[in-house]
């Protein structure tokens, strides 16, 4: 299997709208006729909306809100097709999640493609199609975009940048500095799936497994959580660097200590096994569809049962609490009854996983 094939198709049966060019050419990003062709035949019909159809230089949006959240992220994952997803839906879900972690309702996204010359048009189509599906399912609209094509060898198949805007309701005030002693910490499900799914298909390290990436848009879960307790103090999606790094960031921002219990951290058996074999600490392995919530302890049990009733939060667990001791440090009670520091990740455990 070469790396340009798409072994993990999301089952799209729509025919590719551009058949005369089997590969992306430099001219597809040149601003001329081929660029127009690509936009009108592939992008506009997929992401159909008023703003995009104007083909203006930018989107003009009317947003009424108390506050808006604005975020951007670039996706350079390798391989671009992986068990459980591909770079396209990851680019939508990732930015939707960044907005949701601000407590915002995600509304509008932009997308920028940087494509390497010679990239199979078929693969671009699969990526674009799954972006459309992910955007529809998350309830966001792709209102503006850009495409550039770089010389062969100057990129790696395809890079995607997405930026997003979401609106924040008045009652919501999510801020990493608000983590306070006595708060409970809830994790929304099994950790380390995305990172291990990517490792399982990396060149030189292929191993047979059914582990799939957990990539998912978390905004509907967050919506329900905010309805249950508008006073959530912090939300974080533990992507690169995993749960350990997110907890360290929270402890650092709020100058508080965090104490977690190893026994309460949800992890699937197969993922645990893969981590054992490869020598990874699952606390540092990336997730793409999980969140960490810090909220007043009095609301924790109610929140847990609400999260467990959502499809993306079925395995939620209260994993620890915020404390006044050891500010800036995350300390874990181990299974055998000892304690250890859970440090920030040093260096890269897995290169280019999102």
């Amino acid at each position, binding site marked *: 299997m070469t790396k340009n094939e798409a072994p993990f198709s999301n089952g799209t049966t729509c025919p590719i709208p551009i058949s005369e060019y089997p590969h992306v050419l430099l001219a597809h990003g040149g601003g001329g006729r081929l660029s127009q062709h690509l936009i009108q035949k592939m992008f506009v019909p997929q992401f159909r909306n008023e703003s995009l159809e104007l083909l203006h230089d930018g989107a003009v949006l009317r947003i009424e809100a108390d506050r808006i959240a604005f975020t951007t992220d670039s996706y350079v994952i390798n391989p671009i097709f992986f068990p459980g997803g591909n770079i396209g839906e990851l680019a939508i879900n990732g930015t939707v999640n960044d907005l949701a972690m601000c407590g915002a309702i995600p509304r509008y996204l932009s997308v920028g493609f940087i494509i390497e010359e010679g990239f199979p048009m078929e693969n671009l189509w699969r990526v674009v199609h799954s972006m459309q599906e992910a955007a529809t399912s998350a309830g966001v609209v792709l209102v503006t975009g850009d495409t550039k094509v770089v010389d062969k060898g100057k990129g790696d198949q395809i890079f995607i940048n997405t930026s997003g805007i979401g609106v924040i309701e008045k009652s919501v005030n999510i801020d990493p500095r608000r983590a306070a002693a006595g708060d409970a910490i809830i994790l929304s499900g099994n950790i380390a799936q995305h990172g291990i799914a990517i490792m399982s298909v990396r060149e030189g390290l292929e191993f047979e497994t059914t582990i799939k990436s957990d990539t998912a848009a978390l905004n509907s879960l967050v919506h329900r959580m905010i309805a249950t307790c508008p006073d959530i103090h912090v939300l974080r999606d533990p992507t690169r660097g995993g749960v350990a790094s997110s907890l360290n960031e929270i402890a650092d921002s709020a100058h508080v200590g965090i104490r977690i219990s190893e026994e309460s951290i949800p992890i699937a058996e197969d993922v645990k096994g893969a981590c054992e074999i490869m020598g990874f600490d699952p606390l540092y392995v990336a997730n793409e569809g999980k969140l960490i919530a810090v909220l007043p302890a009095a609301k924790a049990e109610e929140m847990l049962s609400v999260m467990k009733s959502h499809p993306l939060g079925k395995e939620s667990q209260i994993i620890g609490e915020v404390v006044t001791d050891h500010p800036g440090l995350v300390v874990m009670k181990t299974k*055998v009854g000892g304690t250890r520091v859970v*440090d920030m990740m040093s260096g890269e455990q897995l290169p280019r996983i999102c």
Partner: protein
Amino acid sequence: MRYVDEFRSRGAARHYAAMIRQLTTRPWTIMEICGGQTHTIVKTGIEELLPREISLVHGPGCPVCVTPLEIIDKAIAIASRDDVIFTSFGDMVRVPGSSKDLLSVKASGGDLRIVYSPLDAVKIAQQNPSKRVVFFAVGFETTAPANAMAVYQARKLGLQNFSILCSHVLVPPAMEALLSSESNRVQAFLAAGHVCTVMGFEEYIPLAKKYRVPIVVTGFEPVDILQGIAMAVKQLEEGRAEVENEYTRSVRREGNVPAQQLIREIFEITNRKWRGIGEIPVSGLGIREEYAEFDAEKIFNVQNISADESKVCIAGVILRGLKKPHECPAFGTDCSPEHPLGAPMVSSEGACAAYYQYRRFSAEPKEVREL
């Protein structure tokens, strides 16, 4: 997960911790040989379960840590060549040499690849006939069979573009060097389970007798370590000095005989310099003359590179169990995983890295309230 969960169970851990408390009547100092064991101890907080009388000191069994500086410099010299693909286990690439590490060779254009097995390096050699592929063969007896197999396979395949940069070390001579030193304070050893899986444990029997020191072959999970300590304390309290095997699910008395034969086929015993400790007689493995065509040191003519250790880093003292990482003045200040002065701060088996990662807030174990 079977064979893992039962060796991490709180119930079993408490059982052995209670046994150790019951057995202990006076202070004992026990050294765990292997860096993997050190990490389990620090990562799971085992020392919090032990009575104050039991002092664990961390041994030299971290292959990355004891690889001499000049071998790293040799690796850097070879990896910097345009005609070379240099392959290594991930741990080695961030270990500081005299002026830089292997990762910075990659950043300046060298073809450095991290592999999970030396046989992957052989495969890379097959796929890249116009390049010379070198594998950085370091480690104790544990990795020696796989490295020997890579050379064996390369010869069988007729590969002329594959070689290894070899810096293998052996555990028993290092134990003997520690025991015969005047500054020794180790009264019992937890021997390294994986090394003994390959080599068996007969070669430890003369050591136990000569130095009157209990040696318990021990695994790597927290319950293994606690059981190993319990067995060592029992011997100490009863005045016995024998070799016992805690790690029975993996280690047999005679070890893995075919693996040993393969090691002897490719390697011969040689004197070896240990980083921070110095030269220990007959403590290493070198490539036999019959396989010299696979010896990167000879092929690339780097035998003459030599290097001096950092004056600040006390890695040698730590590797001999004379001091603990947090007793080093540079610990966590001038020396951290991002800016390591010595290898024990880099390696996933290094004692300094373990202390930095898992026990930075209090070097001495501290009681934390139950959640």
